[in-house]
C-alpha cells in the first residue's frame, strides 16, 4: 500500500502501527514527533495508531535553529 511520508509517496507492505513504521525506518521514537492525517499524536498513541492506505504521515525531529 502507498502512504505519503514527509510529503513524498512511500510504499509499505500493509497496515501497521506508527510504532512499527518507526522501528522499520530505524527511527528512535523517543526523539521524534508524529503527525497522522494532520493530527499530532501523543507518544503513547504510537502503539495504537494504525497507518492505512493513502494516509499522510509526518515524522519530525529537532534540528539546529535560532
Amino acid at each position, binding site marked *: 500500500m502507498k502512504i505519503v*511520508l*514527509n*510529503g*513524498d509517496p*512511500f510504499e509499505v507492505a500493509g497496515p501497521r502501527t506508527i510504532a512499527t513504521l518507526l522501528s522499520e*525506518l*530505524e*527511527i*528512535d521514537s523517543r*526523539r*521524534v*514527533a*508524529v*503527525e497522522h492525517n*494532520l493530527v*499530532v*499524536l*501523543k*507518544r503513547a498513541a504510537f502503539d495504537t495508531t494504525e497507518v492505512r492506505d493513502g494516509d499522510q504521515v*509526518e*515524522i*519530525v*525531529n*529537532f*534540528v*539546529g*535553529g*535560532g
Partner: protein
Amino acid sequence: MDHLNIAGKTFASRLIVGTGKYSSPSVMVKAHEASGADMVTVAVRRVNISDRTKESLLDYIDTSKFFLLPNTAGCYSADEAIRTARLGREAGLSNWVKLEVIGDERTLFPDNEELIVATRTLVKEGFVVLPYTNDDPVVCRKLEDAGAAAVMPLGAPIGSGLGIQNVNNIRIIREFARVPLIVDAGVGTASDAALAMELGADGVLMNTAIAGARDAVAMAEAMKLAVRAGRLAYSAGRIPRKAYATASSPVEGLVGR
C-alpha cells in the same frame, strides 16, 4: 543572585542561545558551555527518511542542563506555526514555544496579525508562548493581551548583526510590558547585547552572532559577560545624560591660583 523568570520557571542566565549554523557540533557544545545559557532554541523539521545516517542534534545537547525551546521558524501562517508548535511539544515534551510567524522572506519580519492569532490559539491550548515580534509597543501589548508569557521584539532583522536599530522603541516596550521582555534577533557583537540589557530587557536571545563569529566559543563568553554587564548597569542606575562637562576633581585648591 539575579535570575530570569518566565511563566514561573527560573533560569540562571539571561542569555538564550540558538543551536543553528555552528561550524561543527563540538563547537556548538563548547559555545553553549561558554555562554552560560541554560535555555537553547531548536527548530522542528522533517526527519530525513532516505538518509538515516545523520546524527541527531539531541546527541549534542545535555537536556539535564539546557531547557529546550522549540521554535516555529520558517512558518508563514498561523496555521503552519500552530501545527509546528504542536509537533515541537510532542518532540520535546514541554509546552513552551518560541513562536515565529514570518511575513516576508527577505527581511524575515513577523506577520503580526497571524502572530497574534497563533498566540491566542496556542495559549488556549496550554502553551507557554514566547512570540518573536517587531519592535512595536502596540503589537507587544496585543501579544500580552493574547496571553504571551513574554514579548520578544527584534533588535534588527534575524541574522543581520546590525544591533538595536530602534533603541527608543525597546525603551518604550520596557516601560509598557508587564511580562518579561527578551530582545530576540539582530545582535552582532557584545555591545549590542549589553545595550539591550541596559535598556531594561530581561534577556537576550541570539544565534548567528555567536555561531557565525570567527571564534564562536570566545564570542559566546563575550555575550555572557555583556549580558551580565548590561544587566548590572541597568540595575545600578546610570547617570543622567548632560550636554556639558562636570569636573570629577575638586575645582578648589589648585596650585598657583
